[in-house]
Every structure is written in C-alpha cells, then in structure tokens.
C-alpha cells in the first residue's frame, strides 16, 4: 500500500508539480516516459513518489519517446491505467504511436508541456507540439495555469476511460509559463480525487485470458475507412461526456470548466481568441481596457482543442464586430491553423465579423498585457472603420519591419 502523502489545503505548485500530483492521486498503474524539458519535472516528481513509496504503480524508463508511447500502448492494452508526459521533439518522435493509441481506443493520459519544435533549438513554450497532435485522434484539453493542469489531468482519466469514449487524452500546459511557474493551487484530497476518477474498468484487455483479442489488425481499403469513421464518432461524441465530467468536477471542487470559455463576451464588440496562458493575460488586458477606455473587449478561450467545439465557438463570437485569433505555432506557409478553424466555424453562421490572425509567442517570446491591449485596440479600429485595414495575418512581438500577409477584399 502506498504511503500517505501529506497535502495542504493551499499549496504553491508549478504546473509540472501539479500534474504529477494528479497522476499520483489517479493511482496510475503504469507510467512509461522518457523525460524531456520542460516536462521533465513531471516524470522526475512522479519517479520520486515511486522511490519514496507514495505510489503502488510501475514507472518504466525507456530509451526514447517512441518507446515510451509504445510501452503505454502495451500497458493500456493489457488493461491498466496508464500515463506519460512529454514535450516538443519527444512529442514529435511519439507521433507515429499517438495514432496507434487512439486507433486502438486506448485511454492513455499524456501530460504535454508545450514547447517549440526545432530548428532552431528552443526549450521554451509555444504550441507547435500541441498542433502536431491536432489530427492524432486524441482528446486535447488545455490548461491556462498550474491549478488547471492539476484539475484537467484528473478530468482526463475520467473522460478518456469512460466506456462510451475510450480514447487517449492529452492535457496541455504552456512550457515554463505554466510548468515552471509556481502559483497557488488548492488540491483535492487523495480520497476525493480518486473517488472522482474512479477505478479503472478495462475493455478488451489483453490480459483477460477468457477472451483473447487481436490488437493492431490490418485493415485495407475495405475496412480502414469504417474503423476511422467509428473512431471519429467516438471523439465527436465525447463532448457530452466532457461536459458531464466538468460538471461533476465543479461539484467536487467549485471550479467550473467549459469546452469553450468566454470572458466578458456578453456585450463584447471586439475579441481575442486564444489558447493557454495567453487567455488569462488577454483577460487582464480586456478588463483594463474596459475600465480605462471603455472598449468592450472580451476573450474566447478554447479549453477543449479536440474535439474542436465548432458549435460553441461560433456562438461565442457571432455578435462581435472584430476578432483576432492568436496562433502560437509557426504556420509554415498558411494562415494559422487555429485562425482557419475559428473562421470556418464563424462562416457557418450569418455573422461576418472581421477576423484577423496573429502569430505570436514563438519559442517562448513574452506576450504582455500591453501587447494584448494593442491587438484589442487594432480590432476596435477595424470595427469602427468596418473593414480590416492591416494585413490579415500579422506577427506580434517580432523584431524587424512590419511583417504580414493577405489583405481583405471586403474593404
């Protein structure tokens, strides 16, 4: 039996520590990982829990991230609660096996500390790795601070392991800005947290000798499509399960989560749409602008990046005049992917707000309240004039001459 871990009602934890505590409380059976900055402390902390007897599960150190996720697939297929952590290059090396995990409907939980992808080498936070997982078939939850990294990791097990879902779940937090920033965290007791997550109930586990099963069957053009369609249905239909899990978590903790978070959007004229810690920084900017200049600014944040909440995003934004969608990943020859998804969602309504795209914060470049205010004011100017006066895609916080692409045809 695991040794009792003493928790205070109020802790000061960084996001990595918070995530590792959630993994401990969920009583994970197997954690297989290959530590990489900035997610290293999650594995390090969890390893120390094992060394000091605070957990009963296994910790497997492997030789690469590809092996880490492969070990997770094996352990999960065998019928255990399984988790891992990674970032950036490690995430990229896992990519192949991510698709195996989701295709086999294995409810692995992965805490991802978002970090830029090389080259050039960079250990700091941006969303390049998270974007790489966009089509992998994993549910992707986004934390905006350390406490949320803790909360959402607990929720991740409950969502992924639900028998109607049975999908792997990533819980994203921003490298350094969340993972290495200590903030107040109000943890739930071990008993309550475990009761919330619940016992792991295996499905089709390979260690059930009364019902041997084949994993990883080959399906060519006659079967593959049907299996992928069913998998898509599973992730799309996870939405009510996610909502119900968030509701139950609110009853437990008093902390409310929604798939799309909206701040000051009731009367907002201009909005920023963002992911991660930027959401909260932009929220401070919106509040200050409302107070200082009377600009009706609001923030829309995506809590659940996959399944993408098209239905809720468009409702959140349909009454604003101008929106800027912030992408924290190098777009590689296109508009930001997040911009494209939000714009597509809006296009299914009659509303036609002016939508611009900012690429920002690459490689951990700071995003300040002042810059958020500048973006809000620029949207206000677009709203007042009635069309976009700048390039549609611009770069925020970049040194050098003004840089952007594409002009509106609506002006």
């Amino acid at each position, binding site marked *: 039996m695991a040794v009792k871990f003493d928790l205070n009602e109020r802790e000061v934890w960084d996001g990595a520590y918070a995530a590792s505590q959630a993994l401990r409380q969920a009583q994970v059976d197997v954690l297989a990982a290959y530590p990489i900055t900035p997610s290293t402390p999650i594995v390090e902390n969890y390893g120390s829990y094992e060394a000091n007897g605070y957990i009963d599960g296994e910790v497997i150190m492997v030789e690469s991230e590809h092996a880490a996720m492969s070990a997770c697939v094996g352990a999960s297929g065998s019928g255990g609660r399984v988790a891992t952590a990674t970032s950036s290059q490690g995430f990229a090396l896992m990519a192949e096996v991510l698709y195996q995990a989701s295709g086999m409907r294995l409810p692995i939980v992965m805490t991802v500390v978002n970090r830029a992808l090389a080259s050039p080498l960079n250990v700091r936070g941006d969303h390049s790795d998270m974007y790489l997982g966009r089509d992998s078939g994993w549910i992707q939850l986004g934390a905006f601070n350390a406490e949320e990294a803790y909360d959402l990791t607990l929720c991740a097990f409950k969502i992924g392991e639900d028998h109607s879902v*049975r999908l792997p779940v990533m819980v994203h937090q921003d490298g350094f800005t969340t993972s290495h920033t200590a903030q107040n965290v109000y943890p739930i007791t071990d008993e309550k947290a475990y009761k919330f997550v619940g016992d792991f109930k295996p499905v*089709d586990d390979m260690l059930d000798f*009364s019902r041997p099963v084949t994993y990883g069957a080959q399906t060519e053009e006659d*079967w593959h*499509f049907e*299996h992928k369609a069913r998998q898509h249905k599973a992730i799309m239909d996870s939405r009510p399960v996610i909502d119900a899990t968030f509701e139950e978590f609110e009853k437990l903790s008093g902390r409310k989560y929604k798939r799309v978070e909206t701040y000051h959007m009731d009367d907002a004229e201009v909005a920023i749409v963002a992911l991660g810690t930027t959401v909260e920084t932009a929220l401070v900017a919106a509040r200050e602008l409302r107070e200082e200049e009377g600009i009706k600014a609001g923030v829309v944040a995506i809590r659940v990046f996959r399944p993408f909440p098209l239905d809720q995003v468009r409702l959140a934004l349909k009454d604003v005049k101008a929106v800027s969608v912030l992408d924290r990943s190098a777009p590689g020859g296109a508009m930001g992917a997040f911009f494209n998804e939000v714009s597509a969602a809006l296009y299914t309504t009659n509303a036609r707000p002016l939508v611009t795209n900012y690429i920002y914060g690459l490689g951990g470049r700071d995003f300040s309240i002042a810059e958020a205010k500048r973006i809000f004011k620029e949207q206000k100017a677009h709203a007042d004039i009635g069309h976009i006066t700048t390039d549609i895609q611009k770069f925020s916080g970049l040194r050098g001459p003004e840089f952007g692409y594409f002009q509106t045809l609506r002006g």
Partner: protein
Amino acid sequence: MQDLKLLAQDNRGLYQLEAGEDLLGWHEVTQGSILPSFEGDATGIANMKQEERNYSHYNSYTATVASWRVLKPVYNRDICIDCQNCWVWCPDTSIISRDKQMLGIDYDHCKGCGVCVEVCPTNPKSLLMFGEHSSFEDALSQWPEKKKKEKK
C-alpha cells in the same frame, strides 16, 4: 488418402475471404478494430486442440482461401519421417500435426505456395505439388521413385 476436412471444427473455412460485399458498416465494426478470436468464454483455450476451439468469425480459422490455390500439396504418409520441417515452415499454419506426427494438410487455409515441398528432406519427397483438380489417388499413383545419388 486425406480427408479434406481433417481435424476441423464445423466452422473452419466457412466463409469466403472476398472483399467488398456485404461488409459491416462503420456503425457495426468493432471498437478500436480489436478482434476477439473466440466465441464465448475461452478460459483454458491454450490447453485445447485447434478443432476443439470455438473460433469467432473474426479469426481467419473460419475463413477459407482454398480458391486461391492453383496447385495443391499432396502428402504421402509412406515416405514421411515426421521431421516437422513442413510444419515449421508453412506460412499459413496449414500443416496438421499431432504429437509430432504429421497428419496432413488444412486445405481451407493452404494457398498452395509449395514451401512445404521445398523444405521436405526425404527422398523422394513426402509432399509434392499436383494440380488442384487432380485426385489424391492419381497423385499418389504418380509418386516418383527414390533418386539415386549421382556419382561424382
């Protein structure tokens, strides 16, 4: 003379393995393309012989590929030394053997590749390929004599 359904369950080779017709829709396929091999409780299956096992329709046991064959291997008990080479090498587990004694061919799953004949060490061979439509009697009656070693 070999029984075509040598040591077989009723459902061995029941279905034709053909693509494209009457296949399940997306709403009917298994979750995660995970396929249970047996019907019902399979506890203790490891100690049961193949013909005693209740294979499910997801298992290739219940499918047949007999129609893929142009030539078929015929087994001659009189020459075989039960070395098990063919059993080891057959890529489709279509050699039926019990207690290290060779019994014959699973003609539902044999595709007629000829590997068993190739690896057979006896002189003459104990397995030879014949046309799919030739009878066992004809095949056995045409069996070659022992070859003499050529003098060097």
